[in-house]
């Protein structure tokens, strides 16, 4: 059924099918008001359905486009599309710099580090920052936060959200000197409301949730980031069969990557650090083994450099390897304090 393939909500799809619209051709010569009457929905919604259908229609007829395979794009198109979408800021300018402006949508970014380095803090910060309104250069999206370790604390999220709202209103005041900008209306609790929080207690639950995410996000299209804190915890418990673990993880990574592409959202995965024994000597590396390290587009490692927290781009197809310092403050992730001093001295 062609209609079933359209990225519509289940209820809309159901209404279409029960009203007899099963093919894309049946929708092609329809006016929004006609469809609205047939389905008993508001005209704006009908318009949206027709827009989605015509988009789907174009993809079904490759001869009109230059693409060889359905849904294929040229590199030029992809580049232009990427420019359209802002990146998700980390609230730390130095970190944004080495990431090329922030966390990119459509990509899977893995972030690893020792306990206490600030992985969870960064995760909460990103879940808050994805909600920054478009007026302030944000995505105005929502976040899915998958907590496998139980480290997500509502009070901390609220604290970071409060700081974020404060920053926005300060920015607003700066703007108002030149032109009248609109008053900021976001409450910190609104930010919490836009974080879909899942607490996962076993690896089967984790796999089930990743499988379900596709459906969930198709119903919540404004989700722009999926944070998994951490992907590792349940997979280090009890796996006699390491080949099975590799397969499960590989499948999960593939699904996450597809999710990122399909819904144009960022996927951020946190990983733990482990000691790896090679030829009798121990070395530090991210957990889950070598084959897992291929599953993510970008890999960022967080580490201590003296008393300073640093981030290092370990792997990325488009960014050069670089490192930057950041700090975890009461407001969340910010530039490193010592860096400020350096700038002031200059």
């Amino acid at each position: 059924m062609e209609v079933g393939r359209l990225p519509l909500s289940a209820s809309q799809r159901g209404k279409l099918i029960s009203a007899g619209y099963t093919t894309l051709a049946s929708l092609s010569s329809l006016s929004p008001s006609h469809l609205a009457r047939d389905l008993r929905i508001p005209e704006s919604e009908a318009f949206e359905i027709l827009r989605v259908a015509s988009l789907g229609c174009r993809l079904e007829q490759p001869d009109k486009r230059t693409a060889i395979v359905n849904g294929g794009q040229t590199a030029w198109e992809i580049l232009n599309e990427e420019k359209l979408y802002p990146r998700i800021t980390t609230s730390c300018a130095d970190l944004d710099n080495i990431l090329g402006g922030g966390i990119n949508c459509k990509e899977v970014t893995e972030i690893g580090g020792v306990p206490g380095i600030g992985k969870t803090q960064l995760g909460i910060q990103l879940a808050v920052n994805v909600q920054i309104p478009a007026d302030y250069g944000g995505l105005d999206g929502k976040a899915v936060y998958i907590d496998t370790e139980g480290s997500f604390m509502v009070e901390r999220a609220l604290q970071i959200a409060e700081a974020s709202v404060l920053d926005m209103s300060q920015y607003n005041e700066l703007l108002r000197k030149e032109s009248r900008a609109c008053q900021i209306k976001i409450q910190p609790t609104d930010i919490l409301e836009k974080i879909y929080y899942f607490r996962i207690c076993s690896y089967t639950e984790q796999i089930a949730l990743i499988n379900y995410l596709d459906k969930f996000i198709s119903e919540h299209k404004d989700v722009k980031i999926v944070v998994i804190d951490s992907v590792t915890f349940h997979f280090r418990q009890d796996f006699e069969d390491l080949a099975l673990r590799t397969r499960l993880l590989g499948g999960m990574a593939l699904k996450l990557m597809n999710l990122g592409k399909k819904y144009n959202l960022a996927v951020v995965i946190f990983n733990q650090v482990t000691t790896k024994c090679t030829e009798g000597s121990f070395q530090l590396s991210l957990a889950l083994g070598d084959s897992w390290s291929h599953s993510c587009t970008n890999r960022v490692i967080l580490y201590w450099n003296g008393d300073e927290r640093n981030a290092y781009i370990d792997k990325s197809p488009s960014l050069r390897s670089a490192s930057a310092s950041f700090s975890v403050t009461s407001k969340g992730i910010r530039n490193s304090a010592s860096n400020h001093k350096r700038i002031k001295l200059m």
Partner: protein
Amino acid sequence: MKPEKLLEHPLATHKLTLGCPVLDRCLGGGIPCNSVTELVAESSCGKTQFCLQLALFAQLPPSHGGLSASSLYLHTEFPFPFRRLHQLAHSFSSSHRNLIAPDPCEDVYVHAVHDAHQLLDIMPHIESFLASSKTRLPVRLIVIDSIAALFRGEFDNTPLDLKRRSSLFFKISGKLKLLAKTFGLAVVVTNQVVDFMGAIEGINGLRVGNLSSLHSSGRRVCPALGLAWSNCVNSRFFLSRNEEIVRRENNGSEDNLCRQTKRRLDVVFAPHLPQSSCEFVITKQGVFGVDR
């Protein structure tokens, strides 16, 4: 599967008071529920004192910082300090007479555990015990004192044994976190320290958390069970003791040094807390923070 509504959670996680406002302030209200908290220290720093105190204060009503709950105390080091618990219970019940049952010891369930496998074996029993609600007050606190003692024997220092050991860590921690989430428990585990060996820096000297190095009794130490276990707890607090010379007394020919033990509590890492620390003393009545 449905996402949880964050606004339906209490905006601040339920916390179990440590029984002292100074300590509570340092830890943002106490030990958080739905979470695994670790106390790391060398012996005689006061780990067990903290645990016993928590087991008693959990019985207070929420309005007084408690959880209106009984506690399950799994001890792996012998013998269980019944006398000390009794002593603490005595002063506790005399200062909170109207808030708790006449004998607070009755609401502390004690169980001995000898090794890691036994702990995993009794997990299902613990779960049914928590679910049965046969206790006068529901159990909302599990203490494991100490986790390190479970792994004392049995495991060699070979890669295979270390791997087996760390998979056990994750299994135990996964179960504890599941229980914590299901029943809204505060889980407190204690851990020992090992001396820091300079020779194998890199791995052993790896910095975990706010403090670049941990010192106790004038020695550099690091938490036992290594990096793998550090990944298994949500928060880690470090207790230390150091002898300090408070004053010099010169009576005649003898030069007397007056020494005093300074005890400190440090936040090594916690998702909800900044780096902070607090000095504390242990008295007959329990553990108390020192306001400075």
